């Protein structure tokens, strides 16, 4: 089976005063109908990788790759218009904080319907019905009331669920979720995760889940790429997180305090300059 | 080009370091990095160039101007541009326009400098005190500000000048008095956001008083956006001064103030267009210079507009 998304040797470069800065350096992976996690600390290039797929890197940043194909179609050679057709319709993205992703002066209904109608050209009525259906799908109890309200009337967890509903209303094949729960409280976090989980499973979508939370990702995803300094240092099957070999992954695990495993001191990650230089591990199947 | 010049190379490195070794070093490095951002902005550099030129012209007016700006020559009045000995022509009294424009730059700089000193400082004081103290002090200070804002600027300046008497100093005073309220507004708005930030809370926890917090912690952050605003407003100040001069309430003849010069040239505008146009172009160029520089400074000084991440 051919993968939904095939990325080979992806590089994101920014010019700076001190010369070119490569924030993502040769990342390769494929995504099938699975949940792929990308884990890394800030500055590891994980978010840029997600954005680069949708070509959302602002100038003067550059995206280059040997191959970046969506169902066999080259994403890099697409023009603006084709790219807009891909964004939202075939690949959707959920960002960290719903506060900044929802338009504060439009009702939820208008925002969901606008997206749906933009991509499908459906009538207002069917767009409204679709919106209600999607809000129900993300476990919102009173979808009619929510449709009429404005984003500021929603809590963080509600906002994020609305965001997910909005991103999935066009039934994309791939969802990129960039830290979708880190602005949320832990209890709400679980709810949002289970909603994403169910939707991805039911609809046979591919999910790229970007996060800094190693435990969360490994308990949620099928495969995990661990990124460090713009490269993939290790690819793991999620259940086998604790068999990780790379010292960086092991160091990250060791530095987490655990309720069930008390330690007097936390392990401190000793960074090795060699990790930075080692070639990127491929996540292609 | 850098490789050939070793000492310069090391100076550049010294300035670009991330690990300054002394207070002075840190300050220079910060200034240099700001300068680099400004330098990358071509339009800002054009603006800066215009203003530096103005400064040089004003400083060397005695050397640069071909003639005495006050010497009349009624035989050679209203000579067109390009006349022998009068490159920009002469005015209705036969005075050399080039010399008058050159000397006029001194007056313009004088006005700009004084207004730039008075108005933002008054505005900063009023705005930060009102914003930080809040309550009744805030209400009183801001209502006073509102009263000043309620009048059209030039009309208010006219009233002041009419009351104080015509003349350049009074014009400057009048313009300053009408220019400070917007600065107070900006300073207050900035103060309101800064005052609730964690770093102000942190210094409060060291037992710092209001005076120290306002002067040492809030001012440095307000000043940058004020500088930008002042630079952008300077074009308006020059125009207001010229407007007062034009109406005969600013600089008095025979002073070569640009606004007054346009006013004189107005009578001949149809047949002898250059008499009004030459000082008009001078005003236009300097205003443009300030506007361009102001835009560039905004990129350097205002972190909200510039960076995103």
């Amino acid at each position, binding site marked *: 089976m051919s993968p939904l998304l095939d990325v080979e040797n992806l590089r994101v470069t920014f010019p700076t005063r001190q010369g070119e800065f490569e924030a993502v350096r040769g990342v390769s992976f494929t995504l099938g109908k699975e949940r792929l996690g990308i884990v890394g600390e*800030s500055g590891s290039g994980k978010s840029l990788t997600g954005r680069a797929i949708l070509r959302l890197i602002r100038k003067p940043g550059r995206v280059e790759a040997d191959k970046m194909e969506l169902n066999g179609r080259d994403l890099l050679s697409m023009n603006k218009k084709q790219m807009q057709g891909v964004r939202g319709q075939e690949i959707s993205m959920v960002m960290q904080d719903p506060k900044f992703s929802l338009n504060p002066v439009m009702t939820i209904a208008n925002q969901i319907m606008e997206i749906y109608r933009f991509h499908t050209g459906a009538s207002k009525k069917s767009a409204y019905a679709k919106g209600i259906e999607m809000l129900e799908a993300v476990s919102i109890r009173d979808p009619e009331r929510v449709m009429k309200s404005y984003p500021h009337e929603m809590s963080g967890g509600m906002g994020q669920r609305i965001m997910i509903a909005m991103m999935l209303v066009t039934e994309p094949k791939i969802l990129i979720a960039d830290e979708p729960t880190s602005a949320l409280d832990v209890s709400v976090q679980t709810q949002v995760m289970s909603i994403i989980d169910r939707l991805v499973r039911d609809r046979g979508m591919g999910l790229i889940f970007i996060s800094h939370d190693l435990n969360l990702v490994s*308990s949620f995803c099928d495969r995990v790429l661990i990124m460090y300094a713009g490269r993939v240092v290790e690819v793991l099957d999620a259940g086998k997180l604790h068999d990780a070999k790379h010292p960086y992954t092991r160091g990250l695990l060791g530095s987490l305090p655990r309720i069930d495993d008390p330690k007097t001191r936390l392990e401190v990650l000793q960074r090795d300059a060699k990790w930075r230089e080692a070639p990127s591990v491929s996540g292609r199947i | 080009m850098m490789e050939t010049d070793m000492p310069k190379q090391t100076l550049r490195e010294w300035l670009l370091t991330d690990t300054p070794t002394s207070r002075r070093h840190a300050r220079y490095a910060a200034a240099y990095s700001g300068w680099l951002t400004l330098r990358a902005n071509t339009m800002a550099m054009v603006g800066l160039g215009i203003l530096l030129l103005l400064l040089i012209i004003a400083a060397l007016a005695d050397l640069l101007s071909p003639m005495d700006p006050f010497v009349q020559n009624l035989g050679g009045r209203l000579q067109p541009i390009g006349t022998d000995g009068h490159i920009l022509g002469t005015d209705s009294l036969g005075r050399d326009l080039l010399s008058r424009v050159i000397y006029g730059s001194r007056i313009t700089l004088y006005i700009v400098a004084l207004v730039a000193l008075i108005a933002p400082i008054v505005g900063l004081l009023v705005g930060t005190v009102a914003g930080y103290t809040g309550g009744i002090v805030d209400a009183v200070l801001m209502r006073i500000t509102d009263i000043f804002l309620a009048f059209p600027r030039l009309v208010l300046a006219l009233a002041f000048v009419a009351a104080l008497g015509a003349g350049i100093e009074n014009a400057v005073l009048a313009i300053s008095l009408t220019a400070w309220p917007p600065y107070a507004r900006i300073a207050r708005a900035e103060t309101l956001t800064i005052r609730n930030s964690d770093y102000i809370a942190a210094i409060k926890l*060291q037992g710092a008083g209001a005076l120290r917090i306002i002067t040492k912690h809030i001012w440095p952050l307000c000043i940058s956006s004020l500088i930008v605003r002042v630079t952008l407003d300077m074009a308006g100040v020059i125009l207001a001064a010229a407007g007062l001069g034009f109406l005969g309430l600013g600089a008095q003849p025979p002073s070569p103030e640009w606004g007054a010069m346009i006013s004189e040239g107005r009578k001949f505008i149809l047949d002898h267009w250059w008499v009004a146009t030459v000082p008009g172009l001078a005003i236009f160029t300097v205003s443009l210079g300030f506007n361009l520089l102001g835009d560039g400074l905004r990129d350097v000084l205002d972190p909200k507009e510039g960076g995103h991440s």
Partner: protein
Amino acid sequence: MSNIHIENLNVWFGEHEERVDAVKGATFDVPSGASFGLVGESGSGKSTILRAMVGLVPTWSGNMSVGELELGKKRPKAFYKDVQMVFQDPYASLHPRHSVDQMLGETLSLHGFKDIDNRIMQLLDDVGLGPAFRFRYPHQLSGGQRQRVAIARALAPKPTVILLDEPTSALDVSVQAEVLNLLADLREEHKLTYLMVSHNLAVVAHMCDATAVMKNGEIVEVMTVEDMRAMKPKHPYTKHLLDSSFGYRPDAEQSA
């Protein structure tokens, strides 16, 4: 050395119809030299307790005391010498235009220290930053380094009590480990009392001897770290928090 005593503390924002009660009848004690946690989700009022203690929120009622000092409307200067606070976001708690040197120097001079140069070097050394960091500005520091500077600032007046408001929640996990280790070392070395606010139960379990669990402004349970490790919560909300802190488990979704 000072113990913290909080009794029936209420904190509110706004007046009349707009009044929001952020903390309702909170009572707890922190013995001198202990480390006590306040856990809860956003809006539970945990940070508000700290802000009321240091006088950043003036609208409160109840009894608060630190050591011998009963807290009233105004804090005497000696209070700030004794009680210091580290804020959550190191990107917001350092003045953007002040270098590390200015920041520490000003703090020291406000508390009347002489010999400021040496104290600054000592403080930087204490928090594991070398002298190379002395003249840097916040934008030249990483998140972890910023938080170390903020800790150095809190240590400057030689306090006995440090209030920690989510000191690591804005940091990467590997940096979090370094900062938590540093805080533990400093507590040992300077015999400090910690009152630490966090939403992360694992962090609190690591750092504190006991913790209060807060929900909607009320303390629902005070539990020792042993009870937490044994997963023996008394209140269902605590259980829910504990469950949620173990990553994602599809089988746990029904409880939500």
